[in-house]
């Protein structure tokens, strides 16, 4: 494993970690939005946000455990 590969692995893992933060923010925003606008509740957007958050966490864990 050369230096460039190590740098790419670390950078991608950090990026995935930051993406988890984005996913958490999106999920929290969806909770707030449903508070502001009651009509949004029936469109299951919070479920999509939750799936997105789980995907981001799995991606980060994959990078940590297998990739790096």
């Amino acid at each position, binding site marked *: 494993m050369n230096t460039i590969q190590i740098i790419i692995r670390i950078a*991608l893992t950090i990026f995935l970690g930051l993406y988890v933060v984005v996913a958490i923010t999106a999920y929290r925003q969806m909770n707030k939005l449903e508070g502001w606008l009651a009509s949004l509740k029936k469109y299951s*957007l919070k479920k999509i946000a939750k799936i997105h958050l789980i995907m981001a966490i799995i991606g980060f864990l*994959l990078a940590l455990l297998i990739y790096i």
Partner: protein
Amino acid sequence: MEGSQTPAPTVQPPMAPPPIIQTPTVQPQEPGFEQVTKSVKFPISNNYRRFNTLFVLPKEASYENLEKDERVILFIYKHMMTLIPRILLGILFVCALVAGLILLFIFSPDPFVTKTGIIVAWLWASFVLLYFLMILTSYRSDVYIVTNERIIDFDVVNLLYKNAQDIDLESIHSIQNESGGGIVRGMFDYGNVTIDYTGGEFILHNVTMPSKIALAIGELAEARRESEKQQVVIQKI
């Protein structure tokens, strides 16, 4: 002998006329339709369609900053056709993901590139999901709410930026509506409603049935002005 004094007739102050309160004329309800104003009615069955763009006197739909006596009359989303270009872009993102994965598995030169490709594909898939979440949220929270007191434009951009603007119905001067202007717009009957009010101009973009909505808003504004006048008369009395 003093003359008998007749009591001076007491002058009764003129009775104030009772305030004229116009009771709304009860119109016979046509089954399946909801009468919104004097001359505007909408089919109520639309309220139960999942991806409807116009809700009439909705029970479920509400907004956090409604006043005590305020009632939502129309809950208007932009027409679904405005979402099509963004959905097409999302489909393009999905196609790019699939094509990238196919290329990766056909021409995978070494394990490092394959692993990196899989991680990037996973990240890309998450991003595509976020993109669809963002466009759906933006679409479903970009809403015009017409109440018996005002019109509210509520909008959320990119999940983070919230914007709300409202105008009072009595400050409305004139309303214009435009539909058509293109094959798609004409076919699906959607367009803009422009409202001139005391503070400037307020545009309801790409709403369905713009002529009917403009008429309903005009009549609601008129009713609001009438009720304001009556309240002033009652206060003076």
